[in-house]
């Protein structure tokens, strides 16, 4: 079956007041009424899965997914314990949880399921599932919010969730348990004193809600960092849920939005918003951050050691995305291959270098910077192929630096370089600058050299070198 879809999305507030004390404040009651109405909407839509992304469940090791089929306990809030306790017993779709976990790993994310008796389900999830799924009629899943995750990781988390929704043909409802502005009063207040903490927070909240009312979810997602800076206490979990929710809805700006309630909870901005996937119009995007399909992360702290145990058979990984130029690849591994994270990723299935006996052959090396893929001296053309001014000297220096890193990774040194073939895309313009840098660097070592003019290189660079090293034991 492949007809799965997200049939509705909701933004809901996290604090326990809507469950435990709606009667103490008319605003809390209005939030509660909206949540009750949302529950009815979910039922009417014949949803068969509720997915909660909760900002009050932080995680460190990737994302965690609740997979206990029936988690039961009594939740007491760390701050608002005097409002009372919320006993819970939820109906979790463990099979979906495991499938999502697997799909996460397929897309390069760290992920794990948790299934432990007594696991403390967070307040945001408890409030959401208690009110939106009152008889546990619909199976649910809950996912954590990773402390360190950024937009790409959070977006890919949604895409892997969609993979499973589609594969299982589910009618899913996506929920983000979150505050808008999250600054609470730092002193105790009586319920009738509650209001949004500051005028600035209120204005921002209303701006966000205006966007959501217009269905402009992706724009809110792309404003996340700004919103985080403006109205969010810098707690560990940033304003990430809109990244997730937007990706759950195909990063669209033409949803049909409805703000069902907006009120203060101890100063924080609590809202219930319904986002219907029905198109409301054109949905032009105001902002244009790139989309992302796979997560390749920077988090290989532990993997440094693992690189040493890579099997000797050649391996080919899926390419990265890059906006200006071809896909990036992981360097291949084979007998004698030399690869380093200190050099730019290949643009195809090849290693940085390969050693045969006491000879070391480098693949063509350009100026791209490892990690960022930036081109010192600037790219020679933009994404549309229109020429840009660039600095050949800076590019040539960067090529030599990259060569040096690969040569040294192999245990050799630059004075062992014996032969270089250089490719220039514009001999007339660039030969002189390139030649000057050569004289200051490799020229001092003394390898033989051949310089060729060629039509183009695969990335928007002007110079590339093919290097051979003799490295006797």
């Amino acid at each position, binding site marked *: 079956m492949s007809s799965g879809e997200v049939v509705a999305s909701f933004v809901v507030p996290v604090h326990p007041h809507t469950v435990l004390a709606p009667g103490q404040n008319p605003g809390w009651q209005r939030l509660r009424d909206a949540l009750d109405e949302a529950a009815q909407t979910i039922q009417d839509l014949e949803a068969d899965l509720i997915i909660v992304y909760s900002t009050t469940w932080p995680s460190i*090791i990737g994302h965690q997914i609740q997979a206990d089929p029936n988690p039961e306990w009594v939740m*007491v809030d760390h*701050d608002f314990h005097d409002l009372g306790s919320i006993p819970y017993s939820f109906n979790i779709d463990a099979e979906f949880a495991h499938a999502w976990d697997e799909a996460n790993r397929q897309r390069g994310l760290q992920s794990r399921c948790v299934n432990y008796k007594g696991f403390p389900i967070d307040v945001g999830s408890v409030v959401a599932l208690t009110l939106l799924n009152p008889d546990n009629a619909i199976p649910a899943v809950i996912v954590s919010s990773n*402390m360190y995750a950024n937009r790409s990781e959070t977006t890919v988390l949604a895409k892997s969730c969609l993979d499973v929704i589609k594969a299982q043909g589910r009618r899913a409802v996506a929920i983000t348990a979150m505050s808008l502005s999250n600054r609470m009063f*730092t002193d105790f207040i009586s319920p009738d004193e509650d209001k949004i903490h500051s005028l600035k927070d209120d204005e921002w909240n209303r701006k966000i809600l205006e966007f959501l009312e217009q269905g402009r979810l992706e724009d809110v997602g792309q404003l996340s960092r700004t919103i985080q800076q403006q109205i969010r206490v810098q707690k560990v979990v940033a304003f990430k849920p809109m990244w997730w929710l937007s990706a759950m809805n195909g990063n669209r700006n033409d949803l049909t939005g409805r703000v069902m309630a907006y009120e203060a909870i101890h100063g924080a901005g609590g809202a219930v918003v319904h986002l219907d996937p029905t198109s409301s119009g054109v949905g032009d995007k105001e902002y244009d951050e790139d989309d992302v399909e796979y997560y390749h992360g920077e988090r290989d702290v532990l993997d440094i050691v693992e690189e040493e145990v890579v099997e000797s058979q050649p391996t080919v990984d899926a390419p990265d995305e890059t906006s200006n130029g071809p896909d990036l690849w992981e360097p291949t591994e084979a007998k004698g291959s030399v690869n380093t994270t200190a050099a730019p990723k290949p643009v195809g299935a090849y290693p940085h270098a390969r050693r045969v006996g006491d000879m070391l052959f480098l693949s063509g090396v350009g100026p791209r910077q490892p990690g960022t893929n930036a081109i010192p001296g600037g790219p020679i053309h933009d994404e549309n192929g229109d020429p840009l001014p660039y600095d050949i000297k800076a590019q040539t220096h960067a090529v030599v630096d990259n060569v040096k890193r690969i040569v040294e990774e192999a245990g050799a040194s630059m004075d062992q370089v014996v032969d270089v073939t250089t490719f220039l895309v514009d001999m007339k313009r660039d030969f002189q600058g390139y030649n000057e840098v050569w004289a200051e660097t490799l020229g001092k070592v003394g390898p033989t050299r051949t310089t060729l003019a060629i039509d183009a290189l695969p990335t928007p660079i002007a110079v590339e070198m093919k290097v051979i090293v003799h490295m006797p034991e």
Partner: protein
Amino acid sequence: MAKGQIVAGCLAPHPPHLVYAENPPQNEPVAEGGWEQLRWGYERLRASLADIDYDAIVLLSPHWQTYVGTHFLGLDHFEGLSVDPIFPNLFRYHYNMNVDVELAKAIHDEAEAAGLPVKMMENPDFRVDYGTITTGHLFNPDWDKPLVVISSNRSTAYYSVEVMQEIMIELGKVTRKAIEASGKRVVVLASNSLSHRHFTTESEVPEDMSKEHITSHAMHLWDMRIIDYMRSGQAQRILDEMPEFTEQAIAESDGGGLSWLLSTLDVPDYPAILHGYGTIIGTGNAVVEWPCHAHEVSEA
């Protein structure tokens, strides 16, 4: 009544990994050891205080996070199962602890009189946070002393490290005042790590020590700098540099525990004893004791 006294103050971090590695009967998961440097550090701390008599432990844990004021456990007894929401694979601990409610209330009342927003936590369903349980276990595995448990007010997140320190220094002063007025002999514990940048991946065997190291050189330098100040009796410099340390080392001192501890100890100018240092999934952790009993003359 004799004047109460703080017999020792300790930095006593709470990564659940340490309890996991000890395999106590209360914890469900089973480990093949790990993080011995720190566990030996706790052993030395316990030995160092073995002959010192005391009535209660006062502990501030950064994992009972309160945004509205500072809270105190306010019932005599708590028991239940503590599952770490971040490392549930390592920590599922059956706890059973007693609270010195009288002393907790005394500190609460002093803090209130000083103008701090405070609250007693009297909901019997409340689950004690895993930071408290972990430090409580490692410091006193027998659980034979009552605790006073103080929440961590998140004023660093809400305002700044400077505001957090103002609050925590005040809270430290009233803690000391209440302890002295109580006539009790007390150990105070700040339950936090130093540098606090985690790895975001976990090795197949979590206790595989070949994978354990500090996340970065800069974190190491900060940890050593703070430890140097501790060992050379320069607590004031720790308070002075707290904003930079907390920001640059992403230190868990953001929860206020260390500032509160140093203030409670009256900003000691005598050397602390370093019992151990080690990293846990990349974060820096030190077990440190200020042996107040040897430096503060009891006026009893």
